[in-house]
């Protein structure tokens, strides 16, 4: 990689050990992907839940955070993805004091870098959305795909170490979705049925994602007749990124950039209502005893919180079923102020902030609580959670709530 004088000095350790580690890591990744140079970024977003970090990851953060302040402070605004647990509710969810202690250590280390603890995967809805052409180092696949596609930002998937490195150097290797050539469309889909709710937008993302199956594919979806809102595109994008590892999509007339194909226009794959319903049916489990209903992945917007509150109004969650509603700290505070939290919790549901369930020791929660059957309106969550020992069911918010009240999958 071509380095500027400043980058060479960082590499030589003249700006301290944290920045030397950071640029060394970034050069290894950049050279793997044939990056010619670095590109400045205006934000970094770190995924650093303690389930992923483990003790070794926390010790790594602590070792860098022990450097003098001038050497360890991030150079661009750097924020965090959801954490491993919410200190206010972790015991109710079967998480342990040991997990909480490790979480506290991670938080203290991240704060020492000057990281802003936003603990959110919906920063594009709640913190600061990027603008067209802005280069970012975002560390959550749902954040990357929404920002790249809906807003026209430029980011690769930046895992925790790489996002921290970008915060420390203020730049990232210029490869992948920072480059025009990578942003050209490669696959084409035509929709003949409009998704009816967020679970179906997620199902659509899952269908397109499975067909693409690669980070380097850029799908175009035609035939969307009404403009989807932010929450619909959030669920579509997160499922597309989860099922397909896709980081950019184009919806002609809706998303930020014109869909230009890399070569000749490929034939379109048609997605019908039957296709969407068949996707949902893969996860059906009628009448199964229902252990846990989860609303998150991504964290809920204020409008989703209000929809959950309305659906649970005057109802009581079955005594053998747990309902978890997770959102960002910003939205939780708003929901508290507007009375949404108390309306949701009056049903027996748990409202958590700053977590996203699957990043929160999901296997240990299942073992501690005896959970197997999980129901959600998040296609992303049903894709992830099977490996943690859950049997997931995907359904609309309304059907999830009805099932939670009944204590079985309806």
């Amino acid at each position, binding site marked *: 990689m071509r380095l500027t004088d400043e980058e060479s000095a960082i590499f030589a350790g003249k700006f301290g050990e944290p920045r030397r580690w950071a640029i060394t890591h970034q050069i290894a990744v950049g050279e*793997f992907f044939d990056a010619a140079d670095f590109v400045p970024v205006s934000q970094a977003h770190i995924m650093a839940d303690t389930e992923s970090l483990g*003790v*070794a990851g926390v010790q790594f953060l602590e070792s860098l955070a022990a450097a003098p302040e001038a050497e360890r402070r991030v150079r661009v605004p750097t924020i965090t993805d959801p954490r491993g647990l919410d200190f206010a509710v972790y015991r109710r969810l079967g998480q342990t004091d040991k997990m909480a202690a490790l979480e506290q250590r991670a938080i203290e280390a991240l704060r020492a870098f000057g990281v802003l603890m936003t603990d959110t995967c919906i920063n594009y809805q709640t913190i600061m959305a990027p603008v067209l052409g802005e280069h970012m180092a975002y560390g959550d696949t749902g954040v990357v795909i929404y920002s790249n596609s809906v807003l026209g930002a430029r980011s690769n998937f930046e895992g925790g170490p790489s996002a921290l490195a970008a915060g420390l150097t203020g730049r990232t290797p210029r490869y992948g979705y920072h480059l025009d050539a990578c942003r050209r469309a490669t696959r084409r889909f035509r929709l003949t049925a409009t998704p009816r709710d967020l679970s179906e937008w997620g199902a659509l993302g899952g269908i397109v*994602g499975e067909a693409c199956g690669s980070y380097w594919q850029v799908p175009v979806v035609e035939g969307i007749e009404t403009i989807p809102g932010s929450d619909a595109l959030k669920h579509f994008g997160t499922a597309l990124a989860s099922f397909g590892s896709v980081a950019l999509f184009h919806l002609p007339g809706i998303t930020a950039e014109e869909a230009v194909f890399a070569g000749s226009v490929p034939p379109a794959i048609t997605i019908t209502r039957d296709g969407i319903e068949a996707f949902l049916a893969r996860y059906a489990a009628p009448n199964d005893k229902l252990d846990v209903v989860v609303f998150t992945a991504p964290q809920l917007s204020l409008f989703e919180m209000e929809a959950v509150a309305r659906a649970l109004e005057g109802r009581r969650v079955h005594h053998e079923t747990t309902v978890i509603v997770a959102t960002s700290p910003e939205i939780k505070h708003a929901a508290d102020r507007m009375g949404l939290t108390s309306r949701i919790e009056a049903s027996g549901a748990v409202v958590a902030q700053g977590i996203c369930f699957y990043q929160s020791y999901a296997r240990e929660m299942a073992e501690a609580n005896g959970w197997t059957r999980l129901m959600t309106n998040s296609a992303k969550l049903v894709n*992830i959670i099977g490996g943690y020992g859950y049997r997931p069911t995907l359904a609309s918010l309304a059907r999830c709530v009805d099932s939670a009240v009944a204590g079985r999958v309806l």
Partner: protein
Amino acid sequence: MSILLRCHKGIGSAVTGTALVAADNFSARYDLDRSKGVFSRPSHKLAGQSYADRILVLDTTKGGVATAWMLHEMKARGLVPRGLIFNRVNPILAQGAAFGDVTLVDRFERDVTQTFRSGDELRVDPAAGLVEILNRDR
């Protein structure tokens, strides 16, 4: 008696080990029980099999960013693949390999899941962009 295959220059140090191969994809979060060192996702073609100390040969990477931290954590506990061979990876696996010092190569001229067989003895040289099958010549 060996077969030599070229790939893109990779990450990590040269390693020798036994291949575990499947025409399937990979995410440390989605697919593994990291406490036991086995594939745990029921639908994965390697479900129930141990990945510890094997050279994993798979198609591509799945969604999710957690693998970037997890390879480091898995290595610290000694339950980690010895090497990773893929057709093509996403940035997360490359970042995770670089951070966790796990050997990784990709971008061959042939489909790696059809070229390598479980049980093959492999030598992976990321700096040279070479993988050698040591125990057979066809």
